[in-house]
């Protein structure tokens, strides 16, 4: 290996680690408060890629002149397993992004993940009885036809699974904030390039994709307030745009104002209401709950639930009461949703 090769590898590896760590540090604080399974999946994906990259290039430093064939095969097996894991973690990430539910993926798309244990078993068998690849004395791996056949089947399986998951994206508006290119590129490109040229572009391909994803996720995070983990005023403005374009239609709104601890009120809202209720942290001590379909009874019930929880809080903390005020606003007859949203802010 020439000096330039080593430098290239080192530069690649360092930049990978740098970007992943950078992404991790920047977004993890926000992810701690958002803490959705998708965000956690993204972190797992980032860390797996780091591990995959490290493993993939570590042989250059560790085993270059060791001459231990079995160790080479074990090492190569771990790399193959890590690559496999990456591919399927990627599939899960796509699935989560489309469906917004990890449980749903497990319940309905579990057959897509069957190849993982099967392929892992084959890789382990290969260590003792070479059926996929073997290390030769010249310092190269010799891949058997079975390896290419299985790799091709796996690639097709992942791509078909991805397409089957992705065709459901019409049912969700999540993808509007999500770029499809970076997601599908590594899944398609990695096996394709390997099968046609034999080159392993997995680590770099996944890293570039993760960097793109990172920026895509950062764009999504701008709509959230870090601390309570609810939507913020940027989202409210975006929401007004959607309403103006006729893509959203709100019937009522509840404004919650508190004269006490802002965080305590956020905790109450989070605890009392369903996770998917549209909640906006408008300003310190002021929250908004939007509803597209709820009626007056929904507003009454929500107000009662939150007021009861606030009373309970006040009872436990008599020195710092919340002083919660629930303002229920319904859209008037003949009033457009856009006019309604405008009116709610002039109150």
């Amino acid at each position, binding site marked *: 290996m020439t000096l330039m090769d080593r430098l290239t590898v080192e530069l690649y590896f360092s930049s990978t680690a740098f970007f992943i760590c950078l992404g991790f540090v920047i977004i993890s604080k926000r992810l701690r408060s958002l803490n959705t*399974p998708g965000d956690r999946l993204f972190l797992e994906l980032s860390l797996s890629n780091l591990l995959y990259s490290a493993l993939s290039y570590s042989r250059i430093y560790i085993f270059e002149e060791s001459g231990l064939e079995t160790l080479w095969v074990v090492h190569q097996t771990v790399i193959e397993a890590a690559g496999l894991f990456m591919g399927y973690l990627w599939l899960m990430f796509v699935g989560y992004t*489309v*469906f*917004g*539910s*990890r*449980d*749903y993926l497990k*319940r*309905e798309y579990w057959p897509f993940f069957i190849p993982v244990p099967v392929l892992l078993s084959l890789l382990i068998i290969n260590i003792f009885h070479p059926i996929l690849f073997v290390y030769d004395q010249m310092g190269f791996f010799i891949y058997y036809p079975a390896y290419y056949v299985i790799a091709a089947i796996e690639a097709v399986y992942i791509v078909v699974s991805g397409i089957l998951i992705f065709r*459901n994206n019409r*049912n*969700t508006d999540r993808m509007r904030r999500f770029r499809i290119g970076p997601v599908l590129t590594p899944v398609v490109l990695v096996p394709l390039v390997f099968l046609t040229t034999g080159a392993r572009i997995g680590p770099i391909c996944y890293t570039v994709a993760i960097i793109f994803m990172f920026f895509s996720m950062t764009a999504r995070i701008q709509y959230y307030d870090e601390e309570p983990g609810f939507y913020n005023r940027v989202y409210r403005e975006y929401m007004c745009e959607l309403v103006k374009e006729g893509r959203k239609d709100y*019937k009522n709104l509840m404004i919650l104002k508190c004269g006490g601890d802002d965080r305590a009120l956020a905790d109450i809202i989070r605890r*009392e*209401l*369903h*996770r*998917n*209720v549209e909640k906006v942290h408008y300003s310190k001590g002021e929250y908004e709950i939007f*509803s*597209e*379909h*709820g*009626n*007056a*009874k*929904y507003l*009454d*019930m*929500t107000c*009662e*639930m939150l007021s009861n929880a606030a009373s309970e809080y006040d009872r436990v903390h008599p020195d710092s009461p919340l002083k919660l005020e629930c303002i229920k606003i*319904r*859209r008037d*007859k003949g009033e457009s949703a856009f006019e309604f949203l405008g009116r709610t802010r002039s109150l």
Partner: protein
Amino acid sequence: MIVSDITEENIDAFSGLIKEDMAENIGRKTFRGKVLTDEDDALGAIIWEYREVSDFDEEAEIKLVSFLSEDAGEALFEAYNDEISLRSMYRSYLELEKPVEPVPEVLSEQKFSTKIQESRDLYVKVSDLMALEIARKKVPSYVEKLGMITEKEFKQGINWCLYNGRHGIYEDLPSLSMDWFDKDVSCVVRTDGELTGFFMIHRTTTGILVPVLLYASGANFRKDLLRMIVFAIKKSGIKYPPGTLVMIRRHTDETKALSDYLFPGMKGREVLYGERKE
């Protein structure tokens, strides 16, 4: 003759007029009732339920109307008209099974247009449900009986249904407690730690099972709906005798489609339907 409100306190005095299944609704927010008495004798009663038609209009469904003379009927409808005139009412309507004289005549006098038609309610037996092909399907573990969740989760779940504009067949869903539903037959679906599916079934005083709310949200809502139905069928088959009646209300296009799918060709009972625009 005096027209007075039917309340939880006085309803026992009118047990001859008001059946148990109807009596259990008195005291609920959306139900109202009037009774006509002459000294100690009850001459007639009317019970109705308010429903929202839109954000600004309501309708009233007359659930029970019973009187023996035209005078009694007119007095009761006068009290009814007075009460609904205070609200933004769109229409009044009713479905009566085997109405006795002079109810149809009084309805006509009260400007109700009437006709004989098939009831929107379908009555089936638990044995009919158990015989369905879907009853043989397996129920995944994430479908839990209502009794497994906490009161707080229940409230949060009902709130989530209302948030999505779903209240089932009763609009006062938020005021109904978890105990009002059959906790063994009713079920929920849990996804990613949150309740995303609800099938709430009420057992009336006389033992009829009434599905009140069937709703699921999320990517898998169609399958979740079916799985909750299978769960409820299996549990009702275990808990209740095969002859137990189940009342399926076909009040929306979705419920009509579902009942047509489950019981193709099955018809509801013949009823007198009356409607009046307010």
